[in-house]
């Protein structure tokens, strides 16, 4: 029963493609998977927007959307209808072609990144040997789309937003990729499926071998997550949008459905990078404890994804936005060195036998590097808590 449930969607896909001729079968399977991904994550996008609004509202002691549907949970449908029926306004001076293509150029690569994510056991749409590389290659193309949007709008704010977006995404690309190299080194594979399988509990072990349970893995996970915040332009790295500074940044001149596409791309990007974080560090679809193996694998994946999304929302409800130069400093002077330190740490972990000795050697390195880099980052700008005096009367 558990196995059936686990392989439910795989069997379903198999059943649908079985009658087809051999030559086109993988292509049809890919198309069906893509459709399923779009449907599932499109729905996820809708639900996440509502959940985010409700959660942030609760953090701010408000109620949030509560008019459409039960507890306001159909708000996303209302929003969707609204954006679909809204007039699409294109500035007269805009570069019409590029302006039109930008949302598509943003959405397509983002959707492609989902193809290599293992959603469950045997549930990878495109099980490439170089899956991780595919993920980063597709993700890297989104920067250009953001630039296209900002540049083609012929708006000074959107141009500023585009410049910010490029600089930011380019800078965070490095720690984003570097933080995963450790995983690649340890598992010896670029294939996402193999990375997940390497993290499953070995027979007889009660705890899974998630990379996040190691010192270097934890640090790399946090780095990856922070870089993912920046790559998906989420608070506190939402400078390209920066509504209080540059109004809405690169999509200031978009309205109606195109705006919704940007919005959707942002959320899908958030899902895909969270999904990759789950795959790389949180064991993908594996259960944390061996005795929980009976839970269907895709449930694990989506559960972990949900936790990470909640974290994204939580952080958004809390932090103010960084400034551009601070953002750059953080990427180049903190995250990049730390990612570079984590690489040899992972190697040490491997050769120290992945046990208590590994902990003993690598944990101090990671913590020490973190503290030192953090101190140098803050100390150079003399950022500290202050004490205040009162006038003598």
């Amino acid at each position: 029963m558990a196995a059936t449930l686990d392989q439910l969607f795989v069997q379903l896909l198999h059943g649908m493609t079985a009658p087809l001729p051999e030559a086109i079968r993988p292509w049809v399977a890919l198309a069906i998977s893509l459709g399923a991904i779009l449907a599932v994550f499109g729905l996820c996008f809708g639900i996440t927007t509502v959940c985010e609004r409700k959660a942030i509202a609760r953090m701010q002691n408000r109620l949030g959307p509560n008019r459409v549907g039960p507890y306001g949970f159909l708000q996303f449908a209302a929003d969707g209808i609204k954006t679909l029926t809204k007039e699409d306004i294109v500035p007269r001076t805009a570069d019409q072609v590029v302006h039109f293509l930008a949302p598509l150029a943003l959405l397509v690569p983002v959707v492609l990144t989902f193809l290599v994510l293992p959603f469950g056991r045997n549930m990878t749409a495109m099980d490439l040997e170089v899956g991780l590389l595919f993920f980063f290659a597709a993700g890297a193309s989104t920067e250009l789309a953001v630039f296209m949007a900002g540049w083609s709008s012929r708006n000074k704010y959107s141009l500023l937003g585009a410049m910010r977006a490029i600089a930011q995404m380019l800078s965070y690309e490095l720690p984003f990729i570097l933080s995963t190299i450790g995983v690649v080194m340890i598992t010896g594979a670029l294939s996402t499926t193999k990375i997940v399988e390497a993290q499953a509990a070995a027979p007889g072990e009660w705890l899974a071998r998630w990379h996040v349970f190691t010192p270097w893995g934890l640090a790399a996970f946090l780095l990856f997550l922070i870089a993912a915040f920046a790559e998906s332009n989420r608070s506190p790295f939402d400078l390209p949008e920066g509504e209080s500074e540059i109004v809405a940044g690169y999509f200031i001149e978009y309205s109606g459905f195109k705006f919704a596409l940007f919005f959707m791309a942002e959320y899908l990007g958030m899902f895909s990078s969270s999904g990759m974080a789950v795959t790389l560090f949180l064991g993908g679809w594996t259960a944390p404890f061996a005795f929980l193996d009976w839970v269907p694998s895709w449930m694990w994946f989506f559960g972990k994804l949900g936790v990470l999304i909640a974290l994204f929302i939580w952080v958004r409800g809390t932090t103010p936005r960084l400034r551009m130069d601070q953002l750059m400093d953080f990427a180049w002077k903190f995250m990049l060195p730390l990612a570079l330190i984590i690489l040899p740490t992972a190697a040490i972990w491997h050769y120290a036998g992945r046990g208590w000795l590994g902990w003993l050697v690598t944990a101090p390195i990671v913590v020490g590097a973190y503290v030192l880099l953090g101190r140098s980052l803050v100390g150079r700008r003399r950022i500290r808590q202050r004490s205040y005096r009162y006038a003598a009367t």
Partner: protein
Amino acid sequence: MLGIGLIKGLAETGRNFVGSYLDPDRLVTVEYPEERLPVKENFRQFPFLVFDGEKADIGLRCVACQICEKECPPQCIYIEKSKDKKPDHLGKPQFYPAVFDIDISVCMSCQICVEVCPFDAIKMDQQFELSTADRFRGLLLTRDRLAKPNSHFQAIHPRDAAEIDMRRVDERAKAEAKAKADAEAKAKQATAAAPGATKAVASTPKPAAAPANEGAIS
């Protein structure tokens, strides 16, 4: 260490997230059309005209002295004084406002008309759901729409109303006593002069009983 402040902040928002479900002090939102806050007694919205007794066209306290029109900061009151005098609900002939309009699209609810009115004739209402599709006529409150009975005033501002009613009863009692004394003096003169003048004496005290009752209700 870097990040401590952020974690503190995250803990704070997390606490508020949970607290908004548990602590009514945190979740202060009122879902307005379904849920309403009790209106505070001092709350003021737009002015209305108080009338005594049952009928608005008789009992209006306003005597069209036009002080409020002059003092109104945004000049939203428009009064035309009547040419003739009409008996008020006590029977005393008074001027009355032939036209009394308040343009509530201009009115800023400052209550200065209420303060300067020497006759307690204009008071602040508490009705705030006044939206209308007609921007001009719908927001111009004429005398008939402005006139509301004293019982309405007593209902919305009980403390003020009680005080004012008391004062008015006192004043009226004084006036009555004076009138009575005058009348008696007159009657004495009249009885001395000619009989048959008792009619006038009997007619005065009767209506005075009504407002006194109203005061007692509140």
